[in-house]
């Protein structure tokens, strides 16, 4: 028995370095497996699909190389979707930043009592509590030609017209962008508020002694101190807003006449209305490339910060 144990020991000893180096990977393996299954495989499948004539509905897909890319890049509706997405995303992100920062500064103000601040904190964060579908239906009713927005415009004497906010090519993109800003600013507000509360009071006291006014303190102390948070927020929001779908789909469906067509509604229509899954994959791949560029920028910022 002893001999047997003695014989086994060197074998285990030989495995020592493998076990030593393999243990961390063993711990990582569940996460790696999940990442591979939920992220890597779907991404590669979508990339693969984009090179075939059509998939899913076609039992024997044929490799067509870059043909689908050529079709999509020449499609004027894709161009419209890209243009609308850029407007929607950039205005939304700026709107989120301005509103989030303004409300965070208000809530960080010591003029109001803690109770008042607490009440407003709850009120301001409310839009974030609703799902996209609820927000869409809520605003759809308010922006109805017979809705409360037109009523308020009418009683204040600003406009008597029954403006069809979501049915007019002139207003629809602005209306959905406004809804998205309303729905998303609390995330900025909460994050910036946390950042504001972490800025040392000493900095403001020293600046006051040096004679800096409130505006100078804001631009020389507050903004630089918040910069890492702001960069993270802007980057993440840019990516999230590109994928905004339910709000637009429920309220306008990308219409009227493509006025609110964004990349997400364009991809949906290609896939689930036209059943052109490969062309939908091409558009998705192009969005993926754009988001990857932003993600690299974000990662580099994070590394530089660390």
């Amino acid at each position, binding site marked *: 028995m002893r001999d047997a144990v003695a014989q086994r020991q060197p074998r285990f000893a030989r495995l020592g370095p493998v076990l030593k180096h393999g243990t961390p990977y063993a711990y990582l393996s569940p996460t790696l497996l999940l990442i591979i299954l939920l992220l890597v495989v779907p991404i590669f499948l979508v990339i693969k699909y984009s090179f075939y004539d059509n998939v*899913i*509905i076609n*039992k024997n897909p044929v490799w067509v190389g870059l043909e689908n890319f050529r079709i999509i890049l020449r499609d004027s509706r894709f161009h419209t979707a890209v243009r609308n997405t850029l407007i929607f995303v950039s205005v939304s992100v700026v709107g989120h930043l301005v509103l989030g920062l303004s409300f965070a500064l208000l809530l960080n103000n010591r003029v109001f009592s803690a109770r008042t601040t607490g009440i407003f904190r709850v009120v301001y964060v409310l839009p974030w509590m609703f799902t996209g579908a609820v927000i869409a239906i809520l605003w*759809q009713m308010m922006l*109805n*030609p*017979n809705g409360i927005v037109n009523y308020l415009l009418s009683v204040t004497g600003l406009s008597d017209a*029954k403006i*069809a906010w*979501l*049915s*007019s090519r002139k207003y*629809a993109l602005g209306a959905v962008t406004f809804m998205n800003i309303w729905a998303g600013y609390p995330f900025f507000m909460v994050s910036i508020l946390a950042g504001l509360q972490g800025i040392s009071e000493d900095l403001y006291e020293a600046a006051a002694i040096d004679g800096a006014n409130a505006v100078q303190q804001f631009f020389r102390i507050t903004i630089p101190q918040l910069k890492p948070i702001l960069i993270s927020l802007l980057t993440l929001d840019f990516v999230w807003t590109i994928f905004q779908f339910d709000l637009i*789909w*429920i*309220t*306008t*469906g*990308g*219409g*009227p*006449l*493509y006025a609110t067509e964004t990349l997400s509604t364009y991809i949906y*229509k290609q*896939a*689930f*209305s*036209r*059943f052109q*899954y490969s062309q939908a994959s091409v558009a998705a791949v192009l969005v993926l490339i754009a988001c990857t560029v932003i993600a690299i920028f974000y990662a580099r910022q994070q590394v530089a910060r660390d």
Partner: protein
Amino acid sequence: MVRRGLLVAVVSLLVLSLSAAASAVTLEFQQWWEVELPRGVLREIVDGFTKETGVEIRLLSNPYADTNTQIAAGAATGTMADVVGLDGAWVYDYAKQGAISNLSALMTKGGYDDSQLSDQVRVDGSTYMIPVVNFAYPMYVNLDLLKQAGVTELPKTWSEFKAAAEAVTRKTQAYGWIIPLSTSSPNGIQNQFMSFLWASGGYMLKDGKPNLVGNEKLIKATEFVKSLFDAGVVAPGAYSMTEATMVEEFVNGRVAFMTSSLAHINLIRQNAPNLNFAVMPVPAMDGYDGPRGMVVANWGIGIASNSRYQDEAWKFIEYMMRPEVNARLAEAANAFPGNVLAAPDYSAADPLFRDAYEIFKDSYAINEFTGLPVSEHLMRIFNDYLQLYIEGEIDSAEEMLAFIQAEWEPNFR
């Protein structure tokens, strides 16, 4: 010895329980019907099947539009529910994808007599969907608004309709007519726009292919709809409006006329018990006195190809189409049965439903979008060009229809 006996007993029990688990089949049934039926009716009907066969039915119920999305996603990933509620407009694409089963084969295998079915939706000669119940789309009219506007007779022709809609818009706070043209759900083209064409004996297809260019009746119908917009009698917000919002506007007394499903009688009664409304035939082109087409939509049923329980699923469809079950469903849904042998008792039904039934009997059922390839996409194309025409960015109805035909044709090859 005792230990061995115990072991045998445990193993036997395990085998028995496993075989029992294997025989307890549960079919998933994805549909939007439960949402639109009175509470508990569909559950009660499907429980009858479970009682007979022991096969459990799990109802997966969502609103109509969500059901389509869920089924489309299931078809793409091969995870569709065993039995699915279908709209005729979806069938072609799912059949071509191989996502739904060929029911002709199952009918033949089961020796089913299909002569009792009022209709079957076929692709390449094989049945893929059976309409369980059919819904007619009459025109609803708010009688109080008509009275306020001094309109004493229900309009029968387009010119009478336009005059009545103008009177309502001019003399009341409401609008004459309403049409939902949202891009997300473009079936306003099928249910509201085309109802004027079909009521006038017109068609948009010829031998199953698009026949839009030079189609005189369709040109006139298009010009008529534009004239309603130009006259300002159409409720605002049409371009982002869905059918649900349209019904809501009617319920709130903001519009005098709307073409809508008979299924909405319950909803209107529930939400506006005091609304004084009636149903009438969709007005026809001036001078037309031939038979009128009436839009029908149906609650169809099909089987997912990926279902492991094809035979059980077919038995369930047979059960749903059985005359007495079919009649019960038709009564509850305010619809017409899909089985010609079913004899629903409409005596307890809403009087308006009985009026609609009389209108239906004087018309012929039509829906040219049923069974077409990518029919939702076709409606969306029509919707886009119609909006451009109404907005004055396309000069004539002929030009608009030519654009649509050019975009439709590649989908029919």
